[in-house]
């Protein structure tokens, strides 16, 4: 991704807000909140008072879009079929910063549905393995309360697969490498 947060660190003001504390508001019917997370070890880090998302170069037209998983490609085809305008990872949301204000965790949802102003993140991992993504979703809702984002879990993806009889490779990653690759999907930065 061209606008990788690691290449475009966002400087913030000194703010010792413990952003991992408290309960993040989960969008109704969209986010399944995981068990409460322990307070972030980055509680003393710096975060902008008004964090701003990073607009990634719009990916459309004839440019090849490197889908990172067959389920993403299949989902895009379904959207195309129903004439639903979408963009691929158009935005990166910085989520955590180090003490110098560099972004160390960010989140780039896989899809953006233009007409709905809705971001969608697909995951084919088992429910037990989506802790990191759930955490990112909570941070996203806390830091960007106006942003609507839905995490489609493996069961959601599987339901679409069965319904349309198309998705072939919707199995969850099983090896450590696959899980790591899934976690890093979409230029997401982790601790």
């Amino acid at each position, binding site marked *: 991704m061209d606008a990788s947060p690691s290449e475009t660190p966002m400087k913030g003001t000194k703010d010792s807000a413990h952003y991992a504390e408290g309960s993040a508001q989960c969008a109704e*019917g*969209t986010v399944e909140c995981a068990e409460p997370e322990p307070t972030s070890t980055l509680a003393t880090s710096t975060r902008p008072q008004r964090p701003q998302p990073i607009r990634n170069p719009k*990916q*459309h*037209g*004839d*440019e*090849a*879009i*490197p*889908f990172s998983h*067959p*389920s993403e*490609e*299949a989902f*895009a*085809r*379904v*959207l*195309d*079929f*129903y*004439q*639903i*305008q*979408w*963009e*691929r990872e158009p935005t990166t949301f910085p989520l955590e910063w180090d003490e110098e204000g560099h972004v160390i965790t960010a989140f780039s949802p896989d899809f953006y*549905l233009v007409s*709905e102003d*809705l971001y*969608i993140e697909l995951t084919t991992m088992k429910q037990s393995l989506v802790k990191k993504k759930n955490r990112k979703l909570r941070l996203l809702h806390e830091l960007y309360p106006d942003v609507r984002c*839905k995490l489609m*879990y493996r*069961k*959601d993806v*599987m*339901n*679409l*697969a*069965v*319904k*349309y*009889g*198309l*998705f*072939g*490779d*919707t199995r969850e990653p099983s090896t450590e490498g696959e899980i790591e690759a899934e976690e890093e999907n979409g230029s997401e930065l982790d601790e």
Partner: protein
Amino acid sequence: MSDRAKDSPTPPVVGNREGYNSLVDDIDEVLITAEQIQARVAEMGAQISVEYAGKDPLLVGVLRGVFVFMADLVRTITIPIGVDFIGITRYGPSAQKGVVRFTKDLETSIQDRHVLFVEDVVDTGMSLRYILRSLQTREPTSLKVCALFSKPHSRLFDLEVAYIGFELADRFVVGYGLDYDERYRNLPFVGVLKDRVITRRKLPTGTQSGSA
């Protein structure tokens, strides 16, 4: 129908039951019994009868999954109504490169009519969104949605469903008009298929360019 048959996932099939039993054998779990469905449909029909009294509504269904629900629903409605159907292409292996389109249009004008769009199940809302947008351009007096089943956690679009029979968890279900590979529509209950029944198909490799 005997009380025993009502409570059973199998209807009082007369004659050779072998084929029917093979369908039932594919069911892992019955989520909603035939009796529960019929009771709820009757409630919905009664509610619609009250709220649309004097409005001569047109019930519009989308083929094919809705035909069972529509047939039962209209027989519980006690006011004058009209019925019509549309058909749309369904996304699948043969439709990957196309876009959704009507395969059967309405035979009745809906302009200045109260339209109740009847759906079997609303999940992501992708097809419903397309249909409602199309129907809305025809200037009905009102346009509401009645769905027997709703999967709110699967919803991607904010679509208002005025009448909901049952809310379902995020599971793929069959029966009562709902199919898997065009089977199981004739089951009188709604259930979940056994894993072995669901065939995984290999997705073509390669990537797609562009966005809609």
